[in-house]
């Protein structure tokens, strides 16, 4: 157990270093902007008066040497008039978002539930179906089913998310009218905004359950079907391949022959002996995919008109609101680093060989 502990501690020590490195990289992107463009890191509404900008730049030292500014950006700077500390990434201040009309942090708070809901609903079908397809493919190695699944995998891997999303919308919304874009139908969003409906999490489907409104739950889920499929299909294609090859490797091991020689049924051989070992590499891939959802939501949310973090990133990027974009990226990197850490540790728990490295 002590090797496990030192493994975890080692990973924990690397985390802050990586975080600092990430902030340096983000700050260097920020420093490509002029002081005029960076004022909104500290100031909400910039006065329209002449010379106001120059005053602000001077006040917040946006002309100072880069290392000084980096420190200020990280730790915050004291406003000489009020004595309050303003800015400071370490204090959770990521600047003022023009696109979101609020601090970047407020916007994240507002937009996160939609993204979290989407991710929550995607996670299980994404991993579950992907692994299932991979196992089916490996067990039927070189049979027709395997060939079909392999073709699906390689074709799926070649379809861009935005084309896929638009095509499912074409069929299931424009033609059939089954699954509309957006988060809720009009009647449902009126109910959700009314005072009787208590917003526990701001995730519509979950709040509907907690409020005991099955009709709203159904409506929310109806709106989630297409985005979930759009987010998951790429990963199905990829997980299928990873699981398949890992499963094939395992099926050729000597202990599989032993298990069969003991007279176990093929079904039991696969479930009890092959699957647990074959899934070890799949765990990392799967977990990384969950984190990778952060990538996928940008396009999916844009197409399906879901007001989450991804569509916010896209909106602010198009209007060149760099402060918002960098703030969101920073937040995502934080989630990612913590997520990676958890994956690493989980992997260490599952596979003892990793700890010894």
């Amino acid at each position, binding site marked *: 157990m002590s090797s496990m502990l030192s493994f975890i501690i080692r990973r924990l020590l690397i985390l802050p270093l990586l975080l600092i490195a990430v902030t340096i990289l983000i700050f260097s992107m920020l420093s490509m*902007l002029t002081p005029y463009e960076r004022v909104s890191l500290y100031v909400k509404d910039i006065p329209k008066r002449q010379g106001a900008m120059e005053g602000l730049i001077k006040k917040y030292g946006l002309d100072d040497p880069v290392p000084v500014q980096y420190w200020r950006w990280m730790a915050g700077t004291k406003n000489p008039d009020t004595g309050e500390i303003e800015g400071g990434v370490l204090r959770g201040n990521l600047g003022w978002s023009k696109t979101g009309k609020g601090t970047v942090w407020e916007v994240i708070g507002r937009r996160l539930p939609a993204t979290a809901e989407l991710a929550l609903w995607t996670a299980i079908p994404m991993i579950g179906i992907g692994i299932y397809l991979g196992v089916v493919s490996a067990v039927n190695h070189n049979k027709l089913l395997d060939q079909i699944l392999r073709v699906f995998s390689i074709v799926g891997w070649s379809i*861009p998310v935005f084309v896929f999303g638009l095509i499912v919308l074409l069929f299931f919304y424009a033609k059939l009218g089954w699954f509309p874009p957006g988060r809720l139908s009009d009647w449902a969003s009126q109910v959700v905004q009314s005072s009787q409906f208590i917003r526990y999490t701001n995730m519509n489907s979950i709040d509907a359950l907690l409020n005991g409104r099955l009709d709203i739950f159904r409506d929310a889920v109806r709106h989630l079907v297409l985005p979930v499929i759009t987010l998951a299909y790429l990963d199905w294609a990829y997980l299928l391949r990873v699981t398949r090859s890992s499963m094939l490797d395992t099926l050729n091991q000597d202990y599989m022959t032993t298990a069969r020689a003991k007279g176990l049924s093929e079904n039991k051989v696969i479930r009890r002996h092959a699957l647990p070992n074959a899934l070890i590499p799949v765990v990392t891939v799967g977990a990384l995919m969950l984190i990778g959802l952060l990538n996928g939501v*940008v396009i999916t949310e844009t197409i399906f008109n879901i007001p989450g973090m991804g569509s916010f990133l896209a909106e602010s990027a198009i209007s060149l609101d760099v402060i918002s974009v960098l703030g969101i990226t920073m937040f995502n990197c934080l989630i990612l680093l913590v997520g990676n850490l958890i994956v690493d540790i989980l992997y260490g728990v599952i596979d003892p060989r990793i700890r010894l490295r």
Partner: protein
Amino acid sequence: MDVVRRLLKNPTSLLGIILLLGFVFVAIAAPVIAPPAKSSRNVYLIPRDGFGNQPKPPNEKHIMGTTEGQYDILYGVVWGTRTAFRVGIVITLITTLIGLIIGSLAGFYGGWVDEVLMRITEVFLVFPFLLAAITLTSVLQTVYGRGEANFLVVLAKGLALLTFGQSPAKDLDPIQIQILTGMLAIIVFGWMTYARVIRGNILSVKEYEYALAARLIGASDMRILFRHLLPNAVFPVLVLASMDIGSYVLTFAALSFLGLGAQRGYADWGQMISFARSWIPSLGQYWFIVVYPGLAIILFVLAWNLVGDALRDVLDPRMRGRGND
């Protein structure tokens, strides 16, 4: 040659090769298939037939119909092939070159050089790829939008030379700048896997007898690196990397789709599909604005993936786990 023969024997990679040749043909024959107007300022700007808002279904004049703003879809799909090849090839070339330099330096010299370079690589890997590309594109577009002369302009001119064959003496065209910023952003966050794989390969071939023998007879560092290590460690990676052209085209198309890559009306598949965003409720009627350019991207990427997949098996079975090390 053996590799080529095996690729041609495999039905899936054969299909991929045929598709690729088809795209090469379309790219070369673009002026014949979809002749540009004599007066056009830039052949990559899709000609418009009026300014009406509603897309028009396929007809005799416009075989694949027109999008919002009456851009001819056939023209865009055909000339977009050239954009796809250019963007994909240039990004792949530069990312592998950067990966090659960093990876071989780290692997060859080891020690603190290796440590520093690999830590830097790790930091770049923290960023989710598409997110990082979007972020950097918006930063770069702000910077280039100011039009100040600095080293970034030199960089963009170099890229313009490679991508469009434009002489560096000429000023950057605003139409091109949008594309170049997207490409630059993808390059900055795209080289890390190559660096890691090349480093790993160099580390392993470094210990082989022939490398030690070369060292013993007094060969110089550079000679060992270029004559003995690189050919064995890098060429397989380079060949495989060339198959990533498809995925780079995908990423660039995604940027264009979001409105960050090619500008409105440019012959670029992602940009053409982005028109569909405003017609989602009536896509059943206007299917052609998604299906034709969408099919072009899918087939293009599929072709590279088919060849790449087969190549991966043929070249080196060890490479299957690439990127997960």
